[in-house]
């Protein structure tokens, strides 16, 4: 089975930002994403959405270029004021053409 190596970008953010982040993902060329409801703690003790309980974890599989651009944008836009982290990993996918 021929697999292709792509990048999986994971974003963990306060739930309030979900809709906005999805728009960002699309705009930067992501062709799909998967979201799960999570909870977490980080450096920011308190935030508006905390008492509504949840963070969201967005994952999108994209090309390295898209991953790079996305990460830069997220860092510049959200990292200062919002509870957001993001990281990247390599993944091997089947039928890589549907992601790029």
């Amino acid at each position, binding site marked *: 089975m021929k697999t292709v190596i792509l990048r999986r970008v994971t974003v963990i953010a306060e739930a309030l930002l979900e809709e906005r982040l999805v728009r960002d993902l699309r705009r930067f060329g992501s062709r799909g994403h998967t979201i799960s409801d999570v909870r977490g703690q980080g450096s920011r003790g*308190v935030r508006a959405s905390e008492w509504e309980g949840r963070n969201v974890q967005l994952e999108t599989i994209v090309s390295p270029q898209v991953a790079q651009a996305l990460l830069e944008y997220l860092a510049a836009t959200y990292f200062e004021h*919002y509870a957001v982290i993001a990281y990247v990993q390599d993944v091997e996918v089947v039928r890589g053409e549907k992601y790029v």
Partner: protein
Amino acid sequence: MDALELLQLNLLSPMVLAFVLGVVAVLVRSDLRLPEELYTVLSIYLLFAIGLKGGAELSVTPLGEVILPALATVALGILFPILAYGVLRRVGRMSVADSAAVAAHYGSVSAVTFTAVITTMAALRVPVEGFMPALLALMEAPAIVVALTIARSRMPGAAPGGLGEVWREILTGRSLFVLIGGLVVGLLSGKAGLAQVAPFFVEPFRGALVLFLLEMGTVAAARIRDLRKVGPFLVAFGILTPIVFGFVGVVAGTLSGLSLGGTTVMAVMAASASYIAAPAAVRIALPQANPAYYLGSSLGVTFPFNLSIGIPLYYAMAQAFQGG
């Protein structure tokens, strides 16, 4: 019944006790975790039920009766955030963003506190104008918009998005949408429609509120540790503001012709601080503001104060004012 008896009665009501139980659960680190879904469902249920009843009542109310109180409500919603901003900025020496954020919360209104006072008035058999939920809906948005406008004018370029987005955010936000939706459904389907669903939306209402306040207690308790960050000024602000605004509400309610019950409810609306619509809007439009301040004061100080002491206090004020 004198004020002290009333206070005692209120403190020993299932509502307040359930709230305290929720706080205790967090303090003793009980694993009592009510699912978030319950929180969502109950808040939609309570708001929709409130709207439904208000709408059905509105359907038989002459428009003339509503106009003055409605104008008063909007006026308070514009006045309060300006006052609060001034105090926070001048006296409290807080940043522009934080002052505007807190002001937005205290100018707006807490639907749960509203629900609590409605329930208390019913328990005391004090009649309340049926259209009060419509006023609740009217009071939610203006203060938030006014406060954010102040922030925007003081720190140009710092706040993303336009005011249009803020309006959209507030109007389509869950709480206002469900409340207005309930009002419209109640208005159109009338008292006959309400009667059909009363065993679900009317009779179990108080009990559902008790369960909700149990959960609110756990939520508010999590804010108590914010109080250290919040500092003594905001704690004092969180107690004095509702008293002052509550008194203004008593005056406004009486002048606009509301009954004793309606005036008390108006006072509670004035005194209460939003913690659903305002935080969401502020977090989006004013991310620089520190949530510990606006949630710590509105949810950690003012909400418990109003629920326990405030409601009987404003009722006593209204009695004194209308009696005199």
